[in-house]
């Protein structure tokens, strides 16, 4: 161990790449996971003063694995509340109906559409959040509201599920939301799922489902959960990529460093180091470097995480009020991961080094061994096959997993290309340098590259990774996006669409005047084949009864249902549809009656539209494009983060490999000087080689990306049965290549200038 420490101290430059890669990787993982761990579900603020929340009964887990609930009807909720108010310690038992409200300013809906779904409350529930009336009087009849920041006596225009309404403000409350009289709120909401208890309830006396303390976070608003979920997706992608790139950089740095140390390792073997001792020495050296890297990375990550909180909130990837907390377990985990990653990275080169014969101590130049080894072939071909299979399967995967799958496919293909690179590099270099074979520099570059295939492969690998990754990922997503757009548009029957305008859906008033069908979206419990589960239901004007999926095998004649408002019914099954099993259609009027909160997605217009608040008229193409773009914006942000991450990391790898390579070739360059070459000459050689490596990496990475994109397009075309345009992201690929080339030239040239200060031996 102390031997390893001495080695690391002496040859720190050779370990610098590993050190920086580990430090960065650990910082990234520590920071990202701190953000992720800090983003736990929160008890909604409006339940701050309710120590116990009683929930309507669950009816078991649905098909998605999450529990499904039925609602209490308003009458049931009141009875339950009466019963709960007799529990010892309870000050008040308050039903908490919620409903959709958005303020209209100049006939435009304002505020976050998703959060507005639960913005409306009953006045009595303000107490659950500890909110108080600060001025005016409570609302007492329909059309009266209290809210924050408005003076009593004024009026306010709002949009509810029924349509635009004009409310009188009777008071001011010191909490967020719109508070109606309890009766009016109940009318708006339909059913109730939560009854909050204030005081100090004796929980043993409560029957049924309830949550206390931190457990109340289960009642987090769905809109908040979704935002956190998005944030978590980005974090997962970043961590996956970060770890992958770190292993890649560490592995290539270690491989190069091991190649440069063949003589030293041969000497160790000659004076009595067993192969096992050589392996252990290399692991120990890497461990020292990893521990140092972790010691730097952990604090950097921990300190950077809080700085990212507000950008993430602004980008809509974390909910408002998100705060970062110190996560010791996460930091320890990141540190450990750094060590594991480093050891994994050095694994292959340690094994190779242990097989260096003692006689290598006597050979002067590090004669290049066969660049391709059997394991290299096997791993290379396996990863290539895996990546190709995943790419072809991509279009048939659910859209939510496509991004992740594309990321994995890209990683596999590029690892394959990096592993198999030496095979292609020799012919590639011959081809590219053909025109310059006559000149001295050209000849030196050409021969240097051809004899140092492994060195060139190590430099080309990170370039290949970055170029390929950027092109493949953006290209895949852009192509899929484009294809989805065409596919969705093809499905649209009407020419124009009435669509929501900054609202979560269309109100009843917005669709009432429109010529065309406006299906309502809601959720309903149905008991089919003895099991009760939640179904996504669509209220359709032409449905006479319940229409079930053809995929359901045991379709009953009549079905027991529980609506959103808690009422039950037995409805006839009148038909089947071709969609998935968890979808069902019901008569629109029936659904409206039992879910006053239901909104319509859009109206397919078959005549001129009447413009209403919270609604806009779009062409079918604009409408679908808008939907795709909404997702696209988030995906673009993801891509930007991921690609910057890769470019940053691989820039580091390119710089590191070239610094090491040039430094390791000092004797060679000294010979060149002795033969009459000046610094300019040496620089021309290093620059030429660096550019050649970048060119090789670019061609390989671009080639892999192009092949994969073509394969994916083929699969998409078969899936959609129509031709799909391939989108090549030149805008991303070209700057990436230029950055790599710049970094490479600078890094390859820098050691030429610092050469004079260094002594023989290490550097």
């Amino acid at each position, binding site marked *: 161990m102390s*031997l390893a420490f*001495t*080695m690391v*101290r*002496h*040859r720190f430059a050779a370990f610098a790449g590993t050190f920086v890669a580990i430090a960065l990787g650990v910082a990234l993982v520590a920071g990202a996971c701190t953000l992720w761990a800090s983003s736990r579900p929160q008890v909604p603020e409006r339940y701050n003063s309710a120590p116990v929340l009683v929930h309507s009964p669950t009816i078991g887990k649905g098909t998605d694995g999450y529990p499904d609930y039925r609602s209490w009807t308003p009458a049931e909720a009141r009875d339950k509340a009466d019963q709960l108010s007799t529990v010892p310690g309870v000050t008040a038992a308050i039903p908490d109906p919620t409903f959709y409200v958005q303020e209209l300013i100049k006939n435009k809906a304002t505020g976050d559409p998703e959060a507005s779904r639960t913005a409306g409350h009953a006045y009595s529930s303000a107490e659950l959040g500890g909110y108080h009336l600060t001025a005016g009087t409570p609302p007492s009849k329909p059309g009266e509201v209290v809210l924050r920041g408005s003076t009593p006596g004024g009026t306010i225009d709002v949009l509810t599920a029924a349509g635009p309404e004009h409310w009188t403000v009777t008071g001011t409350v010191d909490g967020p939301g719109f508070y109606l009289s309890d009766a009016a709120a109940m009318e708006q909401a339909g059913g109730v799922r939560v009854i909050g208890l204030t005081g100090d309830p004796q929980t043993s006396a409560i029957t049924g489902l309830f949550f206390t303390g931190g457990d109340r976070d289960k009642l987090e608003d769905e809109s908040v959960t979704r935002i956190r979920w998005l944030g978590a997706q980005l974090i997962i992608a970043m961590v996956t990529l970060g770890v992958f790139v770190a292993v890649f950089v560490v592995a290539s740095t270690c491989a190069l460093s091991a190649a440069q140390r063949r*003589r*030293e390792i041969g*000497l*160790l*073997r*000659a*004076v*009595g*180091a*067993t*192969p*096992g*001792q050589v392996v252990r020495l290399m692991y120990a050296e890497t461990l020292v470097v990893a521990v140092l890297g972790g010691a730097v990375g952990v604090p950097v990550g921990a300190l950077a995480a809080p700085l990212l909180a507000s950008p993430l909130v602004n980008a809509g990837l974390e909910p408002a009020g998100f705060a970062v907390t110190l996560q010791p377990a996460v930091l320890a985990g990141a540190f450990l991961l750094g060590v594991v990653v480093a050891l994994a990275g050095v694994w292959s080169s340690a094994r190779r080094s242990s097989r260096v*014969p*003692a*006689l290598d*101590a*006597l050979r002067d130049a590090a004669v290049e061994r066969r660049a391709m080894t059997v394991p290299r072939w096997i791993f290379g071909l396996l990863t290539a096959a895996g990546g190709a299979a995943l790419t072809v399967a991509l279009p048939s995967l659910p859209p939510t997993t496509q991004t992740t799958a594309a990321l994995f496919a890209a990683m596999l293909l590029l690892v394959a290309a990096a592993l198999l690179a030496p095979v292609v590099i020799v012919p590639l270099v011959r081809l590219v340098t053909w025109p310059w074979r006559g000149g001295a520099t050209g000849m030196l570059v050409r021969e240097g590259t051809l004899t140092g295939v492994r060195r060139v492969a190590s430099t080309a690998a990170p370039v290949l990774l970055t170029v390929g990754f950027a092109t493949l990922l953006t290209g895949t997503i852009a192509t899929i996006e484009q294809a989805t757009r065409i596919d969705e548009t093809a499905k649209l029957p009407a020419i124009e669409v009435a669509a929501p305008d900054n609202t979560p859906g269309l109100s009843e008033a917005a669709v009432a005047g429109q010529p065309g069908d406006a299906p309502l979206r809601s959720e309903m419990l149905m008991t089919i084949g003895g099991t009760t589960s939640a179904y996504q239901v669509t209220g359709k004007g032409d449905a006479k009864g319940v229409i079930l999926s053809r995929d359901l095998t045991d379709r009953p004649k009549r079905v027991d249902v529980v609506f959103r408002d808690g009422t039950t019914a037995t409805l006839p099954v009148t038909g089947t549809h071709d969609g998935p099993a968890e979808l069902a259609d019901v008569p629109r009027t029936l659904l409206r009656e039992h879910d006053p909160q239901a909104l319509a997605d859009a109206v397919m217009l078959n005549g001129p539209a009447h413009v209403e608040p919270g609604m806009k008229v779009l062409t079918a193409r604009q409408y679908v494009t808008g939907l795709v773009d909404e997702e696209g914006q988030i995906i673009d942000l993801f891509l930007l983060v991921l690609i910057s991450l890769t470019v940053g990391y691989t820039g580091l790898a390119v710089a590191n490999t070239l610094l090491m390579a040039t430094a390791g070739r000092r004797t060679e360059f000294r010979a060149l000087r002795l033969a009459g070459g000046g610094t300019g000459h040496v620089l021309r050689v290093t620059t030429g080689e660096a550019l050649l490596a970048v060119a090789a990496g670019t061609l390989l990475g671009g080639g892999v990306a192009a092949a994969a994109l073509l394969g994916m397009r083929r699969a998409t075309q078969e899936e959609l049965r129509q031709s799909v345009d391939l989108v090549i992201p030149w805008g991303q690929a070209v700057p990436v290549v230029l950055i790599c080339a710049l970094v490479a030239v600078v890094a390859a040239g820098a050691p030429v200038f610092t050469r004079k200060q260094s*002594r*023989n*031996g*290490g550097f």
Partner: protein
Amino acid sequence: MTITTLKAAVELRKVSRQYGAVTALDAVDLTIAPAAFTAIMGPSGSGKSTLLHCAAGLDRATGGDVIIDGVPLGGLSERDLTKLRRERVGFVFQSFNLIPALSAEQNVALPMRLAGRRPDPGQVKAMLAEVGLADRAKHRPSELSGGQQQRVAIARALVSRPAVLFADEPTGALDTKASRDVLRLLRLAVDRHVQTVVMVTHDPYAAAHADRVVFLADGRIADQTEGSVDAAEIAVRMTRLEQR
């Protein structure tokens, strides 16, 4: 029993080494007596280094047997061979004998540490003093002259009291003064510490320090001298060999 006293330090029996079509060693029989200084001479490409590498267990013979200190190398695994080298063989190469990261004393202590033994600082110091570098213990190889580096290498090779010390042209990269120091040290090891030394050289002056000179040509033993012979005589024999 007389066997122990007569036991050869190294014995080669019909040792051959092929490199593809090239026969570097051709069924060489050679017995190296203990506590003697043997020099191996021969024209360039005659197989001197190959002989040394095979005799020292650095390289495996393609035919015949090598026996070091009574142990046949034929059946040994790479691990056991490494251990044997560590315990019973010392080496000095023409150059690059030291690990650049380690100081002189750390380099000397390296074989002991690799053997899992705690180096005895007194022993390491004494060894460095013996090669005249007591005051350079903390210096790195890059801070030592070529001659000093070779002396550190000799100290490292001798510190574990090996059965044989092999040296492949140890003076090949040194000036006259430094060469003389190195040769004197090797001679001293034989005389004072009863060390067995085998040295490859092409320099008759260096070979004159030996008790026995073995001449190689085309992978075979072509000639030898016993007892102390002067440099001029050795040079004559070399010239004869080269002209054959």
